[in-house]
């Protein structure tokens, strides 16, 4: 079983495999993008290369009934996570820690994150309880996320 990094994003406990996180960064200046997806805060420089930029997403933007997420949260933790079409930055509310052991549990997925949770069906990734506290977490799926923001198959995000 691979260790996982557990975090709070959009008010929900999510996790990704530790090996799937390229790096953790402190949110720096964000350049907003015209006509960007609601969940896209903007782009941010990463690393020492001036031209190396990454889009920063806030999962609160996926909840269309909620107010739009802030464009910039200075000092927020951003997890850089690879996807099939390139890296994304995921804005975290808080990093909760890591866990080496977890077990699958049957837990209802909160509606506003349902679109980005792994539903692949592997028993240990459907949902799990965690060594860190008692609350369950859900696995963040990059494939589901890419589809949720309209990037899959070259599709354009909805208006």
């Amino acid at each position, binding site marked *: 079983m691979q260790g996982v990094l557990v975090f709070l994003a959009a008010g929900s406990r999510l996790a990704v495999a530790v090996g799937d996180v390229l790096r953790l960064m402190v949110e720096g*200046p964000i*350049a*907003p*993008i*015209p*006509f*960007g*997806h609601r*969940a*896209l805060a903007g*782009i*941010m*420089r990463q690393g020492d290369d*001036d*031209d190396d*930029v*990454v*889009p920063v*997403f806030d999962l609160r933007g996926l909840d269309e009934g909620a107010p739009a997420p802030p*464009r910039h949260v200075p000092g927020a933790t951003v997890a850089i996570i690879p*996807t099939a*079409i*390139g*890296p*994304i930055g995921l804005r975290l509310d808080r990093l909760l820690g890591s866990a080496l052991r977890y077990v699958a549990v049957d837990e209802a997925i909160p509606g506003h994150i349902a679109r980005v949770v792994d539903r692949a069906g592997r028993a240990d990734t459907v949902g799990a309880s965690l060594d860190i506290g008692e609350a369950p977490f859900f696995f963040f799926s990059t494939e589901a996320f*890419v589809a949720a*923001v*309209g*990037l899959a198959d070259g599709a*354009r*995000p909805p*208006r």
Partner: protein
Amino acid sequence: MERSLGVDAGPYRLALPLSSVRQILDVGAGDAPLDPRSLGVEPISLATLLGATPTSARPAVLLFDGTADPVVLTCCGLRGVIDAPAPRPLPRTVACRWPGLLRGTIVHQGELTLAVDARVLMGLVEGEGALARERS
């Protein structure tokens, strides 16, 4: 190196190709609000065109080469001429409705600036104009 005009449009920091800016009609700033009648034509706010709220009551005014006719655009501020290498394309993970509008990013004075494709921008201007005519 490419030469462009750095402008602010609402929250967006943009670089417009200098070759497509025919004239700077007004550098903006100052106290007196812009009177559109002085231009003889209703200018189009670049910030509004991009779906944002303008941040200046006294915008700069640019005369642009449109695809058919000249276009008067306003922007919230001028940042001056930028000489920079060709923009670096945006990552494919940038989720936006008009990806062709942005040629990529350049770094100017330490900040990320979005290089705009003037031809696509003019298409957007004319599309909005047609929509406005339909509404009226």
